[in-house]
């Protein structure tokens, strides 16, 4: 039985007074796509860069493919594909030149042509990096990460700032890599991305993992499949809301709105309108959606994942 792709235990990293990673344990199996989720400043990038062997932790142990950085950096490096957050490639370099440069660092891997076509940049192969769109640059960056046919692909916020079409193009590259048996560690603050791509996620905040599991399991911890967000025009008690049929959970947001988690919508909604009507009031706002990892994060921290 081969060793897990990534194991880390008791990871800790501080920068002066700031604790970037407080105490972190992770285990990622081979062939898995694992998502590290959390808001900006949660410690995701620090964690990933420690795992990538680019930052030394203050405490804790890391094993990559059963090897440790201190002992086997030469053996580990060629087996990882790394995309750093916001790396700028050389601007006056053509797409094929950039890919050929990165390919030259690895003992084996796909050809330059294969790499370029895998990220669908065939038409842009003679284009300067500076003339690429954000999505094209990001795909080029992934092509460079794939240059050594890696066992593990690290992607740090690969789709931040991209349009929906570019995001889907990148997701497709990830899915193809998975299909060949590759392992992915992905950080993101897009919950839909995590739900779409990952087998398991860990939600991080303030340098710690709050919960981890498959997206389905985490959403199930909310107790219901739907979330009803409402602003009543008259005062209402949480006991009254909890008593509505089908409602599993009641939370109040910082701004005073109510969040109801329910198994379904068709039973609690009429009852809610009856309840408020009986008090001589109504609703000034009402939205409903299927429960997502965003709701899990909100339930865990009382905060929205992304500060609008």
């Amino acid at each position, binding site marked *: 039985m081969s060793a897990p792709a990534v194991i880390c235990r008791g990871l800790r990293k501080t920068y002066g007074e700031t604790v970037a990673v407080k105490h972190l344990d992770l285990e990622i199996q081979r062939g898995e796509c694992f998502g590290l989720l959390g808001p900006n400043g949660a410690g995701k990038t620090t964690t990933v860069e420690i795992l990538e062997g680019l930052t030394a932790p203050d405490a804790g142990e890391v094993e990559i493919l059963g090897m440790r950085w201190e002992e086997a950096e030469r053996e580990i490096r060629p087996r*990882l594909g790394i995309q*750093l957050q916001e790396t700028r*490639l*050389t601007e006056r370099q053509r797409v094929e*030149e950039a890919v*050929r440069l990165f390919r*030259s*660092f690895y*003992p084996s891997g796909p050809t330059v042509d294969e790499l370029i076509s895998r990220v669908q940049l065939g038409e842009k192969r003679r284009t300067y990096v500076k003339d690429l769109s954000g999505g094209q640059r990001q795909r080029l960056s992934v092509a460079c990460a794939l240059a050594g046919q890696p066992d593990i692909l690290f992607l740090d916020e690969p789709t931040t700032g991209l349009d929906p079409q570019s995001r889907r193009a990148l997701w497709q590259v990830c899915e193809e890599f998975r299909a060949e048996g590759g392992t992915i560690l992905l950080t993101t603050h897009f919950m839909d991305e995590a739900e779409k791509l990952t087998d398991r996620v860990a939600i991080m905040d303030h340098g710690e993992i709050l919960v981890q599991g498959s997206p389905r399991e985490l959403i199930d911890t909310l107790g219901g499949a739907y979330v009803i967000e409402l602003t009543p025009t008259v005062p209402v008690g949480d006991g009254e809301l909890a008593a509505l049929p089908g409602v599993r959970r009641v939370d109040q947001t910082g701004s005073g709105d109510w969040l109801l988690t329910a198994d379904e919508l068709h039973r609690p909604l009429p009852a809610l309108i009856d309840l408020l009507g009986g008090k001589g009031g109504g609703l000034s706002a009402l939205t409903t959606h299927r429960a997502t990892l965003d709701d899990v994060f909100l339930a865990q921290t009382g905060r929205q994942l992304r500060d609008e």
Partner: protein
Amino acid sequence: MSRRAAIRELTLTRLRVMLREPEVIFWVFAFPVLLALGLGIAFRDAPPEPVRVAVVAETGAEAYVARLEASAEVSTTGMAADAAMDALRRGEVALVLDGGDPVLLRYDPTRPEGRTARAVVDAALQEAAGAPRPVDVRVDEVRQRGDRYIDWLIPGLIGFNLLSTGLWAIGFYIVQMRQNRQLKRLVATPMRRSDFLLSQILARLAFLLLEVPLIVAFAWLVFDVRVEGSLAAVGLITVLGATCFSGLGLLAATRARTTEGVSGIINVIMMPMLVLSGVFFSASRFPDAVQPLIRILPLTAVNDALRTVYNDGLPLLAAGGELLIVVAWTAVCFLLALRWFRWQ
């Protein structure tokens, strides 16, 4: 792929970036040529001009005008006394001839042309009056090839260009890569760090093949500046110099996090040598007390070695001391740079 492939790709990448950067093309190629052109024209050799003498009117000095004008080395202008003194102060004339007995010559002894005028006018007056010449003198007007300012300037410009390209192309570029996290991205691959540094130097030396011949050929075609010694020796000195200044550039780049930071460091390194190391004027103008310090600066050593071969036509060994200084600087810079270099 082999390590050679990585070194080749890294070197090619660096060369492509340099050649695709219009600013680099200007500073490395156009700038030294324009500088040589400008200075060559400003300090060109003019035929000897006659000394200009103001002859003060109505003092009896007019009597000497014909005698002075007989000499090709003097030209005279008649002026009122006040106007003549103003012209002297402004440097429009080198000497004022006042009449009377004895004849009065007014000039400013701190100006070289004043002293020349005094000697020329005095001799012309004596000779015209039929003074005897107790010593017979023969003169030989000598113009030697390679003694003009432009001949002296070109090796210094080459040396300075080696320094500035080394500092900017290596130092600035590496800090830029550190600042936008490209260095970190490279370190995240199995690339050997020594391959990266080696290819920066190789790209720099490859660039030399374009840079130095351009200046040498330009100086030869436009100003007839000849390499008196061997071209191979000049080539070797520029390779040693460029390697040394690459090391200095690497040292400048070891710690700086921002391009602003490294620009300051580069200027601090470059400016003193621009003044002290004999680029535009000879380093021997500085006091004897600081000469030992000036002699061990790497740019002084490179410039002196270049001039030994380029102007004096001496063999490479005649610049052995200077070359040792250059090699020592190279070793120290690389050792310190490799020890202190920060990749992230």
